[in-house]
């Protein structure tokens, strides 16, 4: 690892300025569970490391009349254990599926949402892939069992966070702080596909950071659930995951929102499945139709065709479990 200067910002306001000053050479560092691994592998060789955890004011969970506010450096474990957060649908449960207890102790919410992909070609110093500024995606002709079946183009990473899909279905937004001030952005608009820019996963500019996540009170009026399938139960990223939220009356769903992890380079809004299901009485037949509609245009690579079946099955199961809540 290259030697670096370790910077302790005094408050959140100063962070964008520091990042701007070093012009992309500084690395923002929260829990470090992702950032440190990349530094060790040598795919990030920052000259400055900015310790965001030093900014105490970003570590909180607070409810107000509009909803729930969680500071960016709040450790994931606190969201799992928070009595208030537990009242926001499937949020706490979704966070609990992240990695291991050790990683949830260290990892922060902001870091989780902004973590970089796990694609082994991206993560390896040996491959100068398109996401690192190269010109190919090695997964296309390589080992692509875990890669995207939807939304891939020049790059086939899958979006790794378990928290974002759940938050998106709960209509959460993020507060982004830049040198000129802050703005709120719906989380579903935060992520970008490779066709927009294959080198970034989200809309953040190099001198912008996430300072807060806001979940509206409406999350309490709907039923929501996060279903994660992992190859290894003990700890693993999602092979495929499905977050669902909806108003339920009998077997009818309304205000349905579905976001999926592990299938696309972004948390995938299953809008086609929603069209089929929303407002209708759910039946096995309808669920099958919904899955087929959503995955109709899936483009599996050589080793991940199974994800089509898996996604359809999990979608069906997630909706079923939601109805049973």
């Amino acid at each position, binding site marked *: 690892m290259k030697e670096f200067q370790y910077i302790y910002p005094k408050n959140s306001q100063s962070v964008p300025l520091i990042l701007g000053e070093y012009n992309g050479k500084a690395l923002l560092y929260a829990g470090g569970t992702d950032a440190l691994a990349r530094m060790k592998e040598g795919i990030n060789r920052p000259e400055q490391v900015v310790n965001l955890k030093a900014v105490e004011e970003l570590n909180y969970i607070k409810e107000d009349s509009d909803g729930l506010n969680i500071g960016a450096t709040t450790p994931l474990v606190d969201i799992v254990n928070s009595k208030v957060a537990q009242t926001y649908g499937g949020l706490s449960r979704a966070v609990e599926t992240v990695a291991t207890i050790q990683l949830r102790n260290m990892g922060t919410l902001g870091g989780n949402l902004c973590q970089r992909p796990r694609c082994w070609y991206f993560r390896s110093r040996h491959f100068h892939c398109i996401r690192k500024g190269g010109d190919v995606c090695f997964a296309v002709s*390589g*080992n692509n069992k875990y890669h995207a079946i939807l939304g891939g183009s020049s790059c086939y990473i899958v979006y790794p966070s378990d928290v974002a899909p759940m938050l998106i279905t709960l209509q959460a937004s993020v507060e982004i702080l830049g040198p000129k001030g802050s703005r709120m952005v719906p989380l579903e608009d935060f992520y970008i596909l490779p066709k927009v820019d294959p080198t970034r996963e989200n809309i953040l500019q190099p001198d912008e950071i996430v300072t807060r996540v806001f979940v509206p009170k409406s999350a309490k009026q709907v039923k929501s659930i996060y279903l994660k399938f992992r190859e290894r139960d003990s700890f693993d990223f999602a092979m495929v995951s499905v977050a669902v939220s909806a108003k339920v009356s009998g077997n009818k769903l309304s205000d349905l929102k579905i976001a999926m992890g592990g299938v696309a380079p972004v948390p995938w809004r299953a809008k086609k499945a929603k069209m089929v299901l929303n407002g209708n009485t759910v039946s096995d037949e309808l669920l099958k139709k919904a899955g087929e509609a959503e995955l109709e245009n899936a483009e599996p690579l050589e080793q991940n065709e*199974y994800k089509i079946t898996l996604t359809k099955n999990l979608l069906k199961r997630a909706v079923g479990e939601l109805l049973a809540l």
Partner: protein
Amino acid sequence: MTGWKKLNDMTYLGKSYTRVDGPDKVTGRAKYTYDLKFPGMLYGRILRSPHPHAKIISIDASRVVNMPGVKAVLTDIKDEVFFVGDDVAAVAAETEEIANEALLRFKVEYQVLPFTVREEQAMLDDAPKVFSNRDNNIGSTQDRTEGDVEKGFQEADVVVEQTYHINVQVHNPLEVHGCIVKWQDDELYMWDSTQAVHGERSAMARHFKIPENKVHVISHHMGGGFGSKLGMKSFHIICANLAKKAAVPVKLMLDREEQFLAVGNRPSSIQKIKIGAKKDGTLTAFQLDSFGTAGIGGGAGVPQPYIYQFPNYKVNHKDVFINAGAGAPMRAPGHPQANFAMESIMDELAEKLGMDPLELRIKNDPNKTRQQEYLIGAKQFGWDKRLKSGSQKGKIVKGMGLGSGRWSGGGNRETKANVNIYPDGAVDVKIGTQDIGTGARTIVAAVVAEELELDLKDVLPLIGKSDYPWAPASGGSTTTPSISPTVKLAAEKAKNSLIVRVADEWKVTPDQVIYSKKTFTSKDGAQSLSWQEACELLRAPISEMEKWNEGLSDSGTAGCQFVEVEVDKETGHVKVTRMIGVHDCGLVVNMLTTKNQIQGGMIGEIGYVTMENRLLDADTGIMPNADMENYKIPGALEMPDFNITMFDESERGVIGVGEPPAIPGVGAIANAIANAIGAHFYETPITPDKVLMAIQGKEGKS
């Protein structure tokens, strides 16, 4: 020499007792090679090849040598590299960080050569050659024949033919490989995470052309090896050369990625099998064409036909070279691969015959011990509740499978041990074995305590040094049958010497002295001394050396395991829910660590069959999953209920059990999955994607 006492008369042997070094290990007091530090010590790192095959044209180290903190550089290691991760150059520096940064400053000019990382491709005549001095990529071959296969297949009523593809597994001991070398005058001291302190001593002495008694290898505690730490590897030599150049101790620990690439693996195995049987299940013929790769090494052969008796067979095997790190022995080399293919095809045969898989095995297994083990296991397991394959409805289906294994083990006759009794009553035992996590240190103490009728805590076991009497490498399940008899004999001799001393004191013949439970008494009952008092008669310590002898150990074990799984048909997820193992290993020296060992073997089987997979990128030869995130091994939630029964053959003496339990479950797990969903598997690991696709293939596209 007397034999082992009767099982019921023993305090430790045959019973369960905790490890003498357990508290040290769980509190962190136990120091592993990884933990050691010496004054002035440097940190070594190896620059490794990014190419699967290349000639090294030049290495420019000018930006390395003048880097502050860099103390020694090696650039003359080799001129051709054969796999990604092969050694190129090395550096020793004041900190690990400097050493790592230094690696980035080497400028190496390579002439990149064609390579191959797929064994099927490597076999072809026009494949790129791994070694330019060979005609092709075929290494050693085996041909074995018995009886007349053609005739055997003619006699068969049912014939099954399948090809099995078993992927490469990597050892992954908790402690990665590494050593510290210190030269003192012309003597070499090496602290090493090794399975063979004596083997390393000989190898290092030979390599550096110094007398063996000037090489000292030390391994106090080590974090596992599974066969990958049995011998000297290139990093040992590199470390010693760096230490020589720098004239201070150098520590060279590999990282996890290097462990995946450069220090061994379990070879792949592709087995095309044809098997024939009569209507009543009698096996008539077996034919195998197999190949497999141990990278640039050899040893991918399989001991087929495994377990079951075939009057006629023909076996043909080829080792194939590819541009990948060399294989190394791994817990029962060849057997799990053989087991997977054999047990899989036996189940398919049973299905075709309309016969119960257990019945088919009982009919064709010549081993008498295993015949009994089958019955014990089947009863405990509830084998009679096994359902017809693929017959269950619903999302979650259960399956049952079984498999068998065998192993040799046995003691090494060159083993020696030294037991000392001191005038203050203290006792120690010195033997140059090593504890690779199996509990060897504990049993060394226990056997002496048993013989001297002392408490376990009264005996200090001194192991893990090549300066101690010779003992074999911890491999081949030979450690316990080598060291237990030897240590017992040395203790017995030491005890007899103490009896002689007491007899002298009492002016009687030694046969007039009776020793029992820390007390010496004269036959006439007139005199008595405690252990302590007897030892105080000594003017110098008793120090007795003994050699291994026959009669206290044996070789050859059998075993079988029964496995239950649950398969989620919507996700392809497999959960191993129950594993039952019935094994024998003669006289069990420590029931607790034996069961530990068996359970560990079973956990390894779960990993091997359901998760572990060394991938190689076809375009670059690079292993994309050389880390513990993407190379998956089981964790706590993957643990089934274990139930282990030791089949009592204590009269045979001590037999090893390190490897036998890592075999039977391999095919058993695969068969249990097949039983659950009604589709067979021909490739490991059996991961959810494959299970899902198999279910889909069976039920038609949904």
